């Protein structure tokens, strides 16, 4: 059997130099954690600032006067109304209203910048090219790396390299020169903390990462901490918590579909699965994504069945861990809607034993975005 060839990000050698434990992820060899370990990296991010290499994610720009309307034909999000310098969360949908991928969209001076999941970027680029390639230029940016600087002290650390970047507010972005490299910086991330994502030319990524890591507030963090942080923040992981079999309404992501794209809105529908999604907004859904907190200190992981007191199946867990910040088991699960009310008690099946869990509002740890 031949091993699949794994891609490396521009920071690969730096990860090894920092002593990272590497793992295959979405076709890339990525750092899971550094010698400090996942819990320490998680706490570093919650208490100070952590630097993540997210260069495996896909960066794609759409160019042309019709790009926003063209993109609206694939996603149920208001792109036309997105002001220059503003960023929005969204998702590509299929004809059943299922989620093909989730993404971030930023309107820049002369294009739309999309950031998509690593595991889905080839599919996404093909989807864009096939469906809207005749209406706008679909331009992948493999020559750019992406760094995420996250945490309550991210702004003060970044300010030493880019004094203007602290003026950005949550979900906005702009061009900044960092160490003589032209970067596109957004005030966003996927940890629940204040922070930035920095799109940097690949050739300058190592120098920038070293400069950021040299700031006293900043430590490196890997994919392990990124996962526990996003889970505490109640943010979905594509492939676990959302996929082609879940709709945005079932996933509790209806907030990301603006009124203008819903039934009765000025630009209602016009994207794949609109009829399904609009119907679900009206009539509700059978199953939905909820947060669960364990009442016993037993980690409950993805795939664990959720049952009622009599053992009848109600759903299953899609992500779960023992949360480093709150030190209790937390999970996301899809549950039958009549069992999804807040504070409802259910049971998770772990190794043939049942453990009580309670339906809980998300995020599990409050967001601290700089709005």
């Amino acid at each position, binding site marked *: 059997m031949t091993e699949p060839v794994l891609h490396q990000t521009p920071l690969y050698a730096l990860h090894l130099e920092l002593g990272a434990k590497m793992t295959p992820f979405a076709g890339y060899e990525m750092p899971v954690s550094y010698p400090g370990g*996942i*819990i320490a990296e*998680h706490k570093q991010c919650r208490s100070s600032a952590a630097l993540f290499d997210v260069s495996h994610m896909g960066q794609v720009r759409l160019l042309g006067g019709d790009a926003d309307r063209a993109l609206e034909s694939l996603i149920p999000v208001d792109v036309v109304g997105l002001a220059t310098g503003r960023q929005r969360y969204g998702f590509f949908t299929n004809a059943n209203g299922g989620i093909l991928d989730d993404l971030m969209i930023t309107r820049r001076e002369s294009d739309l910048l999309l950031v998509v999941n690593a595991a889905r970027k080839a599919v996404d680029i093909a989807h864009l090219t096939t469906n809207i390639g005749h209406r706008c230029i679909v331009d992948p940016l493999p020559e750019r790396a992406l760094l995420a600087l996250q945490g309550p002290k991210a702004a003060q650390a970044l300010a030493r390299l880019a004094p203007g970047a602290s003026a950005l507010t949550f979900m906005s972005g702009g061009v900044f020169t960092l160490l003589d490299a032209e970067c596109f910086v957004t005030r966003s991330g996927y940890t629940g903390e204040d922070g930035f994502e920095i799109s940097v030319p690949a050739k300058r990524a190592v120098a920038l990462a070293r400069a950021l890591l040299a700031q006293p507030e900043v430590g490196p963090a890997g994919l*392990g901490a990124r996962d526990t942080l996003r889970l505490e923040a109640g943010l979905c992981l594509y492939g676990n918590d959302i996929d082609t079999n879940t709709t945005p309404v079932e996933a509790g992501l209806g907030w990301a579909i603006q009124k203008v794209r819903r039934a009765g809105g000025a630009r209602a529908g016009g994207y794949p699965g609109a009829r399904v999604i609009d119907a679900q907004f009206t009539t509700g859904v059978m199953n939905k994504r909820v947060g669960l907190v364990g009442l016993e200190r037993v*980690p409950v992981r993805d795939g664990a069945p959720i049952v009622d007191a009599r053992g009848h199946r109600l759903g299953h867990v899609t992500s779960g861990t023992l949360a480093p910040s709150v030190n209790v088991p937390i999970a996301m699960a899809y549950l039958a809607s009549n069992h999804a009310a807040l504070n409802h008690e259910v049971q998770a099946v772990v190794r043939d034993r049942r453990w009580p869990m309670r339906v809980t509002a998300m995020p599990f740890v409050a967001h601290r975005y700089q709005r």
Partner: protein
Amino acid sequence: MTTKYTDDHEWINIEDHEAAVVGITLHAQDALGDIVFVELPEVGKTFKMGEVAGVVESVKAAADIHMPASGEIVEVNEDLRKDPSLANRDPMGNGWFFKVHLTNMAEFDQLMDGPDYDSMLAKS
């Protein structure tokens, strides 16, 4: 005192074969990362060699603890239950999992010794 090792990265140490001590190796705890939960067997229960006798979970993964050689559980490490990170900090010492009364010394004898285990790790 003899310490032997399994393919699954458990160690078993016989000071006294009425109560051999079982834990996970330095390599195992490093591969798992931060250990946050252990499930320990009931005292008095018997397991055959290779059967799952417990579970160890880190932030990112769960792994089974296999019985290195057949026997009866005579004691479990309650300190480890309270503070699972002991298995990271001192895997070969205070982070032990359980003690077992071995019923078949031939099984123990066929396990790897330290140099054999090290060379298995070196090859992997």
